[in-house]
């Protein structure tokens, strides 16, 4: 397989847990910056994840191994769905089940200025995003994750302060709804 795919394999090999900070930007098809916020991502492969976005668009996404929770502290509302069909809810779910990459995506590669890019097009027709991108260095460091939608809007997370196999408490990947939270199961 191609260089970018090998870089992804390097990233995943020996990876049990992972944590990083990120800056997320949302731009529209004209490049106009719509939203920018910082956040944190942690993973416990294969199927647990925590993603928290700060700022006015505060959001939490938690995969606890069985379910995927999307929590909005401002609304005091959480939506929950089974993990395996949660890829629709968040492209992040890809990171929880990397072994299912080819099953879910057509994989292509691009070289980008400072690294390699894996370009993933979802096989599921009704996916809400038309393309998912993983930027990696040659030696397998994940630099960024991005997803594009049908209007050309691009959500990009540039990662930093990454740590491989940090000790993470189990509670990191459990969602305990704060009091007064409405929970919805679409």
């Amino acid at each position: 397989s191609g260089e970018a795919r090998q870089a992804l394999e390097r990233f995943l090999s020996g990876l049990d847990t992972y944590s990083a900070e990120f800056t997320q930007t949302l731009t529209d098809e004209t490049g106009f910056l719509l939203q920018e916020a910082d956040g944190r991502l942690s993973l416990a492969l294969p199927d647990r994840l925590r993603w928290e976005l700060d700022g006015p668009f505060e959001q939490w996404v938690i995969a606890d191994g069985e379910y995927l929770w999307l929590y909005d502290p401002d609304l005091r509302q959480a939506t929950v769905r089974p993990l395996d069909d949660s890829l629709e809810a968040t492209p992040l779910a890809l990171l929880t089940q990397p072994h299912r990459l080819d099953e879910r995506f057509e994989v292509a590669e691009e070289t980008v200025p400072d690294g390699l890019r894996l370009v993933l097009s979802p096989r599921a027709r009704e996916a809400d995003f038309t393309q998912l991108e993983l930027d990696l260095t040659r030696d397998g460091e994940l630099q960024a994750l991005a997803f594009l939608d049908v209007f050309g809007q691009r959500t990009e997370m540039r990662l930093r302060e990454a740590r491989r196999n940090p000790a993470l408490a189990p509670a990191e990947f459990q969602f305990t709804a704060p009091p007064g939270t409405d929970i919805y199961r679409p």
Partner: protein
Amino acid sequence: CAALPESAGERALAQEAFMERAERVAAVPDWRLAGRLVLETPGESWSGQLSWRAGDDSQIIDLTGPMGRGGGRLVLGGERAMLLTRDGERYEASDPDALMVVMTGREIPVSGLDHWVRGMARPGVPFDLRADRSGQPMRLFQDGWEIIYRTFEDAGPARLPTSMELTRGEMNLRLTIQRWQLGVPAGS
């Protein structure tokens, strides 16, 4: 902000200043905003990104839910309005508010918001107003909606709203605007 006008005379002055402000703002047909829209209703609430681009004969309104999902794009221009959803569905109607119901399941008053978001009343429709002496709105009642303006920022012809709340019946919309840009053609 300026002291609350008490007397009828002062209210008339504030209303006049409000209309003058509206003319100054309306004189800039190209504008765009990026902000966060929160929609609270008895059922499931919704929050996400709102991007609104207006040119003199067309408008593009994008709603994006968490993780860049859900919502869709509303294109207004001429007689017809068009809705494109993220999973490729396409709808057309003459009334954009009806398309908002298709997109979000709720009646987001697009035809009113177009003006309210700039601190103006919808032309040709009766309204009730509380404004300060400079004509900057504090509270506007129109189309059954109560609109409360909380904060503004300088943006050229007039100070434009950066946080506002709209209520009608059991529906509550909160809009915080992070970026205003005036005078840039909608397409660029």
